[in-house]
C-alpha cells in the first residue's frame, strides 16, 4: 500500500467525523425513519400521556385525576352545615347521654333533604359538608369521631362472606363501624380459624356460622335472606375498604340507581392483556346492550342494591352473580357505576384463584355460560340482534 493511499484513508475517516457530514447523515436517517413511519399506518405516540388520551393504555387512577377536578364546596352552605351540626349535637345531648352514629345520621340526612346544598353528588363536596357538620356537633370534644355519614337515612345491611379471614376481618369490620349501618351480617363458612370470634367482638354484627364451606357467593344469598335493611351492601372479608370509599355507592343510589356497581374499569389493562373472566364479563354486558357498564358486574364486590332490586332479581340468584346481572337488566333496574375500588390489586391470592386454568376462573366462566343460557332461553338464540341481512340456505 502506498503512502498516498494510506494517507487518503485516514483523511476519509477524519472527514466522516466532521460535524457537517455527521449532521447530514443524521438528517438522512431521520428522513428515512419518517418515511417508514408514514408508510406504516400505525401512528407513533411518543408520550405516555398521548397514548392515554387515545385510550391505548390504562386510564389514570382516580386518586391521580382527583387533583385535576377542582371541587370547592359553597362556603355559605359550609357555614350552614356547621350551624346545623352544632344544633344537632346540642339537640341530641339535651335528650341525654352521648351522641351515637344513628342519631346524628338522622339529623344529617334531614338537613341534607331540607337545605339541599349544591354539588353533593360530588364526593369531595359531600365529604367537606359532612366533616363540617360532624366537626360542629363535636366542637366541645377533644377528639372527632371518624364517622362516615350517608346521604339518606336508609337502614343498611352489610353482607360479608368470610372463610378463614382472621387476619383481615377485624380491619374490615373496623372500617364498617365508621358507617351508621343497621347491621353487618358475617357469613362465616368453612372456617377453622378465629374469624367468628373476632367478628363477634364488634357491635351490630350478626354472625351466620356454617361448618362446611358453602362455595362462592352462596353466602350472599344466605346473608341477604336473613337481613332486614332497606339497602344491601355486599362485600368480602378479604380486604378492608376505607369507609369513605364506600360513599360513592350510596351517592349513586341516592341519585336514583337501584344497583351501584364497583367500577373496576380504571384498573384493568389493555384488551389484549386481560384475563378470560374479564373478557366474559364485558361480553355479557355487550350482549345485554349495556356497553356503558364495560367490565363491571355483580361478580365484583363491593356493590350496593336496594331491597326491592334484590327481590326482583330473586335472592337465590345472587349466588350466581352473572345470572343476577341478567335478571337485573331484564327487570329494567337502573344499574349505575358506584365507587372505584381496586379489587384487582387487593384480591387475596390463593392457590385456587391464580394461574391460567384455575378452578375459580373456570367456575366464573361457567357462571357466565349459565347466565347466557338463561338469556337465550328467554329471548331466543339471537337475543335482540336479529339477522336482517341473510337469505339462509340449509
Amino acid at each position, binding site marked *: 500500500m502506498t503512502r498516498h493511499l494510506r494517507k487518503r484513508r485516514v483523511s476519509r475517516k477524519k472527514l466522516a467525523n466532521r460535524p457537517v457530514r455527521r449532521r447530514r447523515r443524521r438528517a438522512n436517517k431521520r428522513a428515512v425513519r419518517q418515511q417508514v413511519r408514514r408508510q406504516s399506518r400505525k401512528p407513533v405516540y411518543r408520550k405516555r400521556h398521548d397514548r392515554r388520551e387515545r385510550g391505548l393504555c390504562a386510564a389514570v387512577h382516580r386518586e391521580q385525576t382527583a387533583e385535576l377536578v377542582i371541587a370547592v364546596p359553597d362556603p355559605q352552605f359550609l357555614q350552614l352545615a356547621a350551624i346545623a351540626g352544632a344544633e344537632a349535637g346540642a339537640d341530641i345531648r339535651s335528650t341525654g347521654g352521648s351522641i351515637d352514629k344513628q342519631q346524628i345520621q338522622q339529623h344529617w340526612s334531614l338537613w341534607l333533604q331540607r337545605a339541599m346544598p349544591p354539588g353533593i353528588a360530588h364526593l369531595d363536596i359531600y365529604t367537606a359538608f359532612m366533616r363540617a357538620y360532624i366537626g360542629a356537633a363535636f366542637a366541645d370534644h377533644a377528639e372527632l369521631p371518624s364517622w362516615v355519614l350517608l346521604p339518606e337515612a336508609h337502614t343498611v345491611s352489610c353482607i360479608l362472606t368470610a372463610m378463614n379471614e382472621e387476619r383481615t376481618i377485624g380491619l374490615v369490620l373496623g372500617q364498617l363501624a365508621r358507617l351508621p349501618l343497621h347491621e353487618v351480617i358475617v357469613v362465616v363458612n368453612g372456617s377453622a380459624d378465629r374469624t367468628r370470634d373476632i367478628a363477634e367482638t364488634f357491635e351490630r354484627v350478626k354472625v351466620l356460622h356454617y361448618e362446611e364451606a358453602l362455595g362462592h357467593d352462596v353466602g350472599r344469598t344466605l346473608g341477604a335472606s336473613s337481613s332486614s335493611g332497606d339497602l344491601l351492601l355486599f362485600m368480602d372479608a378479604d380486604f378492608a375498604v376505607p369507609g369513605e370509599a364506600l360513599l360513592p355507592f350510596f351517592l349513586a343510589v341516592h341519585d336514583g340507581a337501584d344497583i351501584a356497581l364497583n367500577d373496576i374499569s380504571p384498573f384493568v389493562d389493555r384488551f389484549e392483556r386481560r384475563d378470560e373472566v374479564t373478557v366474559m364479563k364485558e361480553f355479557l354486558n355487550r350482549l345485554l346492550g349495556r356497553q356503558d357498564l364495560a367490565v363491571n358486574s355483580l361478580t365484583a364486590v363491593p356493590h350496593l342494591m336496594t331491597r326491592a332490586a334484590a327481590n326482583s332479581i330473586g335472592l337465590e340468584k345472587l349466588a350466581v352473580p352473572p345470572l343476577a346481572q341478567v335478571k337485573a337488566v331484564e327487570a329494567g333496574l337502573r344499574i349505575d357505576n358506584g365507587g372505584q375500588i381496586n379489587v384487582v390489586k387487593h384480591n387475596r391470592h390463593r392457590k385456587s384463584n391464580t394461574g391460567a386454568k384455575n378452578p375459580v376462573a373456570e367456575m366464573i366462566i361457567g357462571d357466565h355460560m349459565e347466565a*347466557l343460557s338463561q338469556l337465550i332461553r328467554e329471548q331466543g338464540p339471537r337475543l335482540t*340482534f336479529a339477522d336482517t341481512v341473510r337469505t339462509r340456505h340449509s
Partner: protein
Amino acid sequence: MKATKLVRNANRPKVSVIIPVMNERRTIRSVIAQAANVHSQVEIIVIANGSRDGTARIARAAGARVLVYPQPLGHDVGRTIGAKAAKGDILLFLDGDIPIASANLTPFVKAVENGVDVALNRYTGPVHHMQVHSVILAKHALNIALARPDLKGVSMTTIPHAINRGALRIIGAGALSVPPCAHVRAVANGLKVEAVHHVNVGSTNPRKRKRIDGKDPLEHVILGDHAEAIHSLLTIKGPRANRIDKIRRREWLV
C-alpha cells in the same frame, strides 16, 4: 377488457377456492389471479350475488366457475353455496374485495394437507386498546367459552381460511353462512382447529361499511351470530358448557 384466462379449472380439483362477491369489479381479477396459484389442481368458484357492475362477467372471463344470483344473498351465505358446489378435497375461503398474494394463501392449504382440519388466519384485529369493537370482543369470548383461549380472537369469521372435506361434513355447509356457528361446530366436535398464518386483512380491507346513526349495522348482526353460536355450544355441551360447579353448595339456596 382483455379476456385472458387466468385459471383453468381442473376436472378433479384438489383445492376449491370459494369467493363470494357482490360488486367487486375492481379487485376480482387480482383475487382470482392470486388464488389460481395456490395449487396445481385448483378450481375457483365465484358466487356473484346481487352484482350489477359486471363482476360476474369479469370472473367468467378470468376462467372461474361463476354461480350467479341476481338478488343479494346476505353476509357469508355465498360460503354455503360455494361449499356445496365445491369438488375439491380442500376448501379455501376468500373474499372478492381483498386481494391476497398467493404466498399468503398456500400456508392454509399446506396446513390442511398436513392434517389440520380447519386452518385459520391468525389476524385478530386491533386489540391493544382499552375499548375494543364488539366483533373482536365476541370472537375472544367465544373462544374462551369453547375452552380454546389460546386461539384468542381467531375465528372462521375471518378470511382466508381453509377446511378439509371431513370438516365440511361435520360442520355442515349450511352453518358456513353463520361463521361463528361453524366455528363452534368445528371446535366442539373435536376437529383440529389451528391458527396457521397471519394475514393482515384489516388494513387492506377497503370496504367502508355504511354507518346508520353512527352505528355499524353489521356489528349487531355479528353480535347476534355470536349469540347464536353460544346457543349451539350450549345445546352441544349443556347449560354451563361442561364447566362443573362442584364447590358451590347449591342445596343451601332453596
